[in-house]
């Protein structure tokens, strides 16, 4: 479902003397449907960079990134938009929303974008918010004022609203208490159960051990110069 081949990337800082920073070289991985692959490696080794390239958020330098039947490294913006809408979900560490939009609508939005009827979309959103212990009295409020942990849970609910065939999870269990961590791990197991291909970054070793079928150490993809 997700295949990365010989992926390379460097950043060029034009306003800092044109400094070129190579950040990735020869990255390769494969995630099959129903499988969860964990990315490991020290902080700064490029786990999030790799994940962002797969999502099309960072531009690939060279190589291939196949998600479903699209090469993200070469795709047109509209193809990536369609991919993100239907196929590829991403739970980042940060929640980015239009201010003043109620939490329930923030979570339902991926479904509304797919043309799901408003009632059904909000029902699904409500179910996820309940499971993630966001009190119902907060649903009508914008999540911008929520605590870090609450925002993270809203972000997760949003990421799991649509049953994406492929999912990228950047530290989904960070800043969660035991009960919510358990819920998130169950959501991941359910997604695997329905055949989703998942690529995740977990600093929490217990969580990693429980949901990841295999691990890939990104240190192997770090260019020699910065390693």
């Amino acid at each position, binding site marked *: 479902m997700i295949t990365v081949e010989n992926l390379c990337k460097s950043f060029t800082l*034009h*306003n800092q003397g044109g400094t070129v920073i190579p950040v990735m070289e020869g990255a390769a991985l494969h995630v099959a449907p129903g499988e969860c692959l964990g990315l490991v490696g020290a902080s700064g080794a490029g786990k999030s960079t790799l994940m*962002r390239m797969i999502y099309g*958020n960072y531009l690939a330098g060279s190589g291939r990134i196949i998600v479903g039947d699209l090469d993200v490294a070469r795709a047109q*913006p509209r193809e990536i938009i369609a991919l993100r809408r239907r196929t590829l979900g991403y739970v980042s560490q940060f929640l980015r929303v*239009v*201010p*003043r939009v109620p939490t329930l609508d923030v979570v339902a939005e991926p479904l509304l974008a797919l043309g799901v009827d408003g009632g059904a979309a909000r029902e699904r959103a409500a179910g996820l918010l309940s499971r993630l212990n966001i009190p119902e009295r907060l649903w009508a409020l914008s999540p911008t004022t929520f605590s870090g942990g609450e925002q993270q849970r809203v972000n997760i609910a949003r990421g799991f609203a649509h049953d994406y065939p492929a999912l990228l999870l950047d530290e989904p269990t960070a800043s969660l208490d035991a009960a919510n961590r358990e819920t998130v791990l169950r959501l991941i197991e359910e997604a695997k159960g329905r055949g989703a291909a998942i690529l995740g970054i977990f600093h929490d070793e217990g969580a990693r051990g429980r949901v990841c079928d295999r691990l890939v150490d990104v240190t192997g993809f770090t260019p020699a110069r910065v390693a």
Partner: protein
Amino acid sequence: MTPLLQVKSLTKRYGPRIGCADVSFDLYPGEVMGIVGESGSGKSTLLGCLAGHMSPDEGQVIFDTATGPRDTLRMTEPERRMLSRTDWAYVHQNPRDGLRMGVSAGGNVGERLMAVGNRHYGRIRETATDWLGRVEIAADRIDDRPSAFSGGMQQRLQIARNLVTGPRLVFMDEPTGGLDVSVQARLLDLLRGLVREMGLSAIIVTHDLAVVRLLADRLMVMKSGHVIEAGLTDQVLDDPQHGYTQLLVSSVLQV
């Protein structure tokens, strides 16, 4: 899928100066494209040329009309005027440029309906009331003039006036400029909802990177009349390739 709009090598000069040069892109149905750049970068000139407010010196602006793709720059004036009342809409930065200030709110919305042939007063008023509701203007303000409205309400009224005829392509010039931030947020939410529900395509010119991040799927960055970078909005903002875009992104003040 046929692009809704195909722009080819569009160039506009002001005497020896360049307004915009050699701009080409395709816009597909349902896509929202942002154009950013500092003042003087040519983004408003480009929007004006696309919307038929200015005549470019070279290039083509091909729109997928009901009868197939046609170069709007080669249409007759009545044809282009009809297009700008039906399939196209233009939201000005200053609502005073897009509204008739001496006519009631309902009249402002109804006028566009009458321009495309609606004549039944009751139905026009009904549609106008419905649209005022959609842009969150209370029904009892229908007979008030826009001059009695706040800036945010005027902007929402301008949007209602533009969208009432169900356009397929909306041009917006700094639609949230000049509004305070809380009003801006409400307008952004409204625009996003309308774009999604009506399947609109839109081209939005702004200098506000936060606005394009939330509204636009794609982004074009302009400098000195040229498009220097284009791509997926979050990719251009998070991994800018051109030195100028890097400067632009790193210059945004953090709140």
